[in-house]
Each structure stands twice: as structure tokens, then as C-alpha cells.
């Protein structure tokens, strides 16, 4: 559709959503088949299609944006949408944090006989005392050691908090028109993000080899790895977003007034930062 200058941009018919649906279909259908014993072929094909879609779709959006096809109202639509997308992500993490609190505060103590559950404990799990971190009365996954909070996790907290500062510093640079500050700040943020992910990977190795702390280590292992794992995944996604923004900044995109992509990535980055603080406090520390 042709576009009248100044009016709300309505995109022409597009192939990308369909490509995305096909990619998701192959990736998730292939994953399901893989879990049933098939090969990973379809899953990988789906992942490739999905990556092609992301390049194509976001590429289109970036071209449209650079061609000044988006007016202020479109910009505002993007802002609202990103905000509520992040909120939906918050709710996804809430499910896992909820599971953690429920096990630690309610169902775990009940297994140990708390409340009116003395007979449950006596008949089903005699002698079991619930102490978090726990892999349950069945000692599922075998004896393990707890992941300490004040080694790598504390360092990672500092790294993420620092990256929150550098991304804000980059934003200041963009707003006052200093491209050097923008690029340097973004580069530091992305670097800190990937260092964080590297440390997490190292920590996982340490947990598996030295602590016998695995995904299979009862409720502690389940909540530990699912929460930190999904968080690590989100940090990776956020770092990739910031990397794209960095490359666009190097290419000369964005102006001091209009730079929604930068802000969206920055919001997302602060979101993973805040989730990490929750993780550090409730998974590692307390």
C-alpha cells in the first residue's frame, strides 16, 4: 500500500509472519518428534527458518524506520507493545518463582510434617526433615553441594548492574549526539552481557562436575537450573538485541530524538537485570 506522509503506517501484505509460523511449526513439531526418538533434523530446519524470518522481518522494519515511514504514533505503538511484551515475560518468570516459593514455604515443609501433615510424614516419608535446599525425601539425584552466592554469582551481579550503568551512559551519549559515547557504551554493555553468560556456563560446569548439582537434583536442581537457565537465555537474547543496536549505531542509525530500537533493547536489558536480582536473592543467597 502506498503511504501518505504523516499518516499511520499500514504495512503491505507480508510473507514474514507465514515464514515465522512455518519455522515455529517445524522447530516445535521437530522437537516433539525428537523427544519421541526421531532425529533433530526437522527441529534444526525449523530453527534455521525462524532465524531467516527474524533477519527478514526485523530487516524490513529497520528499512522502513530508516526511510522515515513511522510517525510518532507508530513509535508510540511500538513502545506500548514492547512494554506489555516485557510484562508477559515477567509473568513467565513469575510462574517459576511461584514454584520456588511454594516448594520452599508450603509443600516442602508439609512433606516434613508441618501443619496438619504429621501423618503424611510418618507414613510416607518417615524421618524426613525438610531443609532448603532440598532434593526431597527421595534424595532424588543423589547427594549434592549447594551453589554458594558470594563467588561467581556475586560477581555476575556486579557485572549485570554495571552493564545497566553502561547502557544508560550510552543512552546519554545518543541523546547529546556523541556517537563515540554511544558506541563505546553499547560495546561495553554487550561485552559485559556475554561475559555474564560465559560465567554462567562456567558455573554450570562447576555445578555438574564438582557439586553433583544437576537439573535432576530434586526440586532444588529443578528450580535452580530452570530459573537461571531461562534467565541466561533471556540475557543472551537481550545481548543479541543490544549487539544489533550496536551495529546499527556504527552504521549511523538513530537520532537524538528517535531511537526506539535502542530504548526497547535497553528496557529489555533492565528487565533481565531485575530478574537477576530476584534470582540472586532467592535462588543463590537466601
Amino acid at each position, binding site marked *: 500500500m502506498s503511504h501518505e506522509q504523516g499518516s499511520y503506517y499500514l*504495512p503491505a501484505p*507480508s510473507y514474514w509472519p507465514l515464514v515465522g509460523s512455518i519455522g515455529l*511449526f517445524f522447530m*516445535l513439531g521437530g*522437537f516433539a518428534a525428537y523427544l519421541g526418538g526421531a532425529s533433530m533434523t526437522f527441529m534444526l530446519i525449523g530453527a534455521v527458518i525462524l532465524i531467516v524470518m527474524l533477519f527478514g522481518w526485523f530487516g524490513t522494519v529497520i528499512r522502513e524506520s530508516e526511510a522515515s515511514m513511522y510517525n510518532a504514533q507508530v513509535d508510540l*505503538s511500538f513502545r506500548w507493545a514492547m512494554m506489555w511484551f516485557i510484562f*508477559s515475560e515477567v509473568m513467565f518468570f*513469575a*510462574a517459576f518463582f511461584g514454584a520456588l516459593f511454594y516448594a520452599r514455604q508450603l509443600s516442602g515443609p508439609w512433606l516434613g510434617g508441618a501443619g496438619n501433615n504429621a501423618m503424611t510424614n510418618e507414613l510416607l516419608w518417615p524421618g524426613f526433615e525438610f531443609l532448603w535446599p532440598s532434593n526431597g525425601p527421595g534424595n532424588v539425584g543423589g547427594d549434592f553441594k549447594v551453589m554458594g552466592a558470594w563467588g561467581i554469582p556475586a560477581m555476575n551481579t556486579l557485572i549485570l548492574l554495571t552493564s545497566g550503568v553502561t547502557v544508560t551512559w550510552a543512552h546519554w551519549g545518543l541523546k547529546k549526539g556523541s556517537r563515540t559515547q554511544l558506541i563505546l557504551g553499547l560495546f561495553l554493555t554487550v561485552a559485559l552481557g556475554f561475559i555474564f553468560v560465559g560465567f554462567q556456563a562456567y558455573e554450570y560446569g562447576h555445578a555438574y562436575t564438582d557439586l553433583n548439582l544437576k537439573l*535432576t537434583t530434586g526440586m532444588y536442581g529443578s528450580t535452580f537450573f530452570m530459573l537461571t537457565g531461562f534467565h541466561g537465555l533471556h540475557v543472551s537474547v537481550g545481548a543479541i538485541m543490544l549487539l544489533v543496536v550496536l551495529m546499527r549505531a556504527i552504521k549511523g542509525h538513530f537520532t537524538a530524538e528517535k531511537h526506539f530500537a535502542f530504548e526497547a533493547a535497553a528496557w529489555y536489558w533492565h528487565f533481565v537485570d531485575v530478574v537477576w536480582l530476584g534470582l540472586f536473592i532467592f535462588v543463590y543467597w537466601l
Partner: protein
Amino acid sequence: MSSDITANDTHHAHDEHHDHGPPSGLMRWVLTTNHKDIGTLYLLFALLMLLVGGALAMGIRLELFEPGLQFINPDFFNQLTTMHALIMVFGAIMPAFVGFANWQVPMMVGAPDMALPRMNNWSFWILPFAFTLLISTFFMEGGAPAAGWTMYPPLVLQGAGNVPFMIFAVHLLGMSSIMGAINIIVTIVNMRAPGMTLLKMPLFVWTWFITAFLLVAAMPVFAGAVTMLLTDRFFETSFFNAAGGGDPVLYQHVFWFFGHPEVYIMILPAFGIVSQIIPTFARKKLFGYSSMVYATAAIAFLSFIVWAHHMFTVGMPVAGELYFMYATVMIAVPTAVKVFNWTATMWRGAMTFETPMLWSVAFVFLFTIGGFTGLMLGVAPADFQYHDSYFVVAHFHYVLVTGALFAIIAGVYYWLPKWTGNMYNEKLGKLHFWLSVISVNVLFFPQHFLGLAGMPRRIPDYAIQFADWNFWSSIGGFAFGLSQILFLFIVLKTIKGGEKATDEVWEGADGLEWTVASPAPYHTFATAPEIK
């Protein structure tokens, strides 16, 4: 809610856009970014799923026609109940409402389209792929999911190869819903015509606005719950395994934290549709517009803090039972505000009973029955008796069939002339209504008696004393099912042709959508109308 719309001439706007009409061929529908096309896709997909889910229900009623095992083995019966629910909830009711939102919200707020048209296409086109994954399980070794749509562990984890397909289908449906909901929120906050203040928005827009927030908050939690199922089944986590320090009841909490708002996701847009229709045919303004808005918001808020009333018999602490009971019965207050509003709107109105009004009046009566049985179920000690019985089945079918589905059908009759430019056949519409409203009561009302007499839900066979009411319920079921073939016929016939509809369509209709031509032009409100 304003009727003082400056006659913005959308016909002119349309003329300017003549060269931007719909492209032809199949790819129009696959690649479209137009809210009306996408709305149509959603609605047709929902109709298809309604018929598929209905066919499964016919299988259920066939087996329950008389005691004993006649046609279907018990495992396949469980597959039927599970898939019937999943298909109806996620394939029929929810997409139908999103279809209404796509067609109506931009027209009702005076927007040129949805705020994010490409993402709008993606929200829809995920659905057929998701249901391909889900329905393909019928043809797998071990068959389709059979542990109930609520997917409780540990039973669901004993399912065959279908488990990951079901879980990933749910993930896809969740993505679709979240993107659809975000689109609706953004359209409403950012695309309203000048002068369309929040408290001038039609109630259908309001109810969808609030529903969209419920979706964005609840669907990710569901995604989390089924992800835990996936890792428990395939990666040896212990979320729902007591030996590992987890708890199967944890799943129920997480699931119903999603599941209860989901109930309101399926009924709030129905409230919206009925709140549009009743004032039109009573030829009066809605009795209390702002109280409807606040009641909707109150219901939405309460929906997040009452989830465990689905789990009264699971062994919660007494304090929990009491809290969830009191919180639950509080929902009766804002719901009553709504029912009194509809009644008061009709009071001394110049009422006529065209087909949409018939369905809406039936909605008010029959949804209220479902609401009252809901109150009964909300009382914890009474629920100990009703739990998992046919009383529960009767309750939620009154809410979902004579509630949500009736409102959807009412809305289709109400807006179909605007969408197609043709009037439906009023005689056939009324016939469809009377056949449906009688048969649906024959179908579901006896299930109250069955439940109170002790018949459990989700069983293929039953004791002999339940035979009579099951017989009648099945008769009603077959009749209700067949009546919907008539609905299909009426809809297709109206799409093909019929008496031309006027722009206003209904004498008492109020709102922006009635100011544009019938059928609504491909692009409406390219320049925003001014609302005074």
C-alpha cells in the same frame, strides 16, 4: 458511547483508496495485514473448530446415550473429552472473540487498522499450525492426550507420544494469544480517534481491553506450567514429584492461576457483545455505562485471586479454603451489577426481538443460571459434594455454551450484515435460535440432576440409575449439534447473498461502525473521524 458522531464521510475516504482494495486469490488471506481479513480468518477458523469440537462432543454423548460400553473404548473416550475441551476453549471460543475484536475494535474506536498489522497476521497464522500439531496426535500411536484439558500430573505424564505435541501446541497458542492481546491493547490505547475518550468507548471495546490484560498476564503462566510438565517428563526435573521435594498440587496452583483468568477471558468479551446488542433492540442507552466498566475491571481483578476454588478438595489448609471461598463469592457482586444493568436497560424499552436480541436475552437468563451454580460451587463445604461431578459439567457448559457461545452467535447475527453487506434470513435465524435454546437446555439442564445424584464427570459408563437423564441429555446434545449445521448454512448463505443491508442496519444501533457503508469498506477511517 457517544452517538454524536460528526458525520465523517468514510465513503469519501474509501473512494480515495479504491486502488488499495483487497488483492485477489488465496494469497490475499495468507499474507494479509488487514484487520477485517484477519478478523474473517479468525471467525471462520473458530467456526471450523466449533464443528470439529462439536463432532467430538457428539461422540461423547453417543457413548453416554445409554449405560454400558457400546461404541467407544474408555481410553478413546478420555481422548474425546480432553480434545473436545482443548479445541473448544483454544480453537473455537477464544479465536472467535479475537475475530470480533479484529473486525470491531478498529471500527469502533475510529482507527484505520490494528496498531501492528503484520504481527496481527502472525497471531492468526500460528493457530492452524498449532492445531495441526494438536490434532495430529489422534493419528499417533497411543492416540491423543487423554488426561483432561487441565493436564494434571502425574496422570498426564503417563501419556504416550502425544505429550510433547500437546505441550508445544499450548506454547504456540499462548504466543498467538499474547501477540493478539498486545495488539488489542495497543490499538485501544494508541489508535482511538480524537475525542474518543476512554469513557466514551463502546463496552465491547472496554471488555476486550480488560480481557487483553488478562491474556497478557495469564498465558505466560500457563506456558510456565506446561514447560514444567515437559521437563518433568523428559528431563527428569522434580517440580511435581514429591520424592524430589516437589508437589503435584503445585501444578494445579500454577495451572489455575492461569485457568481462572482464562474463564473470564472467555466471558468478558461476551459481556461486551451483549452490552452492545441489548441497548440497540431496547432502543435505550445502556442503563449504567460506567458501572459496567467498573464491574468488568472488578471481575478481572478478582479473577487473579480466586484460583484455588477449583481445588477445594485437594487438601489445602482450612485458612486457604476460607479465603478462596470468600474471595470467590465476592465475584457475584460485580457480576450482579452486570445482570441488573442488562435487565434495567430492557425495562420499559421499546423492545423488538430480532435474532441477535433473542440470543442476547437467552444469554442473560442462561448465563445467570451458570452464574448461580458457580456460586454453589464456590462454597467450599458444598463443593466437597459437587466436585468432579456432572454438576460441574453442567455449570461450566451453561457459562461457556449458553454464555460465551450464545454471545458469539448473537454477535455474528448482529454484525454479519455490516461485514457482508447482506441481511441474514430472519426466519431461519429465529428457527436456529429456538431449536438451539430448547435443545441446549435439554442437553445441559439434566446434567445438574446427574451431578447432584452423584454421577462423576469424565466417565464412559455409569450406574443404571443415571440412565434416564443421560438419555435426555444425549437427545438434547444431538439436536443442539444438528441445529448448528443450520447456523453454518445461514452464515454461508448470508456471505453469498441476500437482501442488501443498510448502513445503519439496525434502527436503534449506536456507534461508529454503523456510520460506514455495509459491507464495511476494506479500509475504514483512513482519516480519523471526530467524536464529540
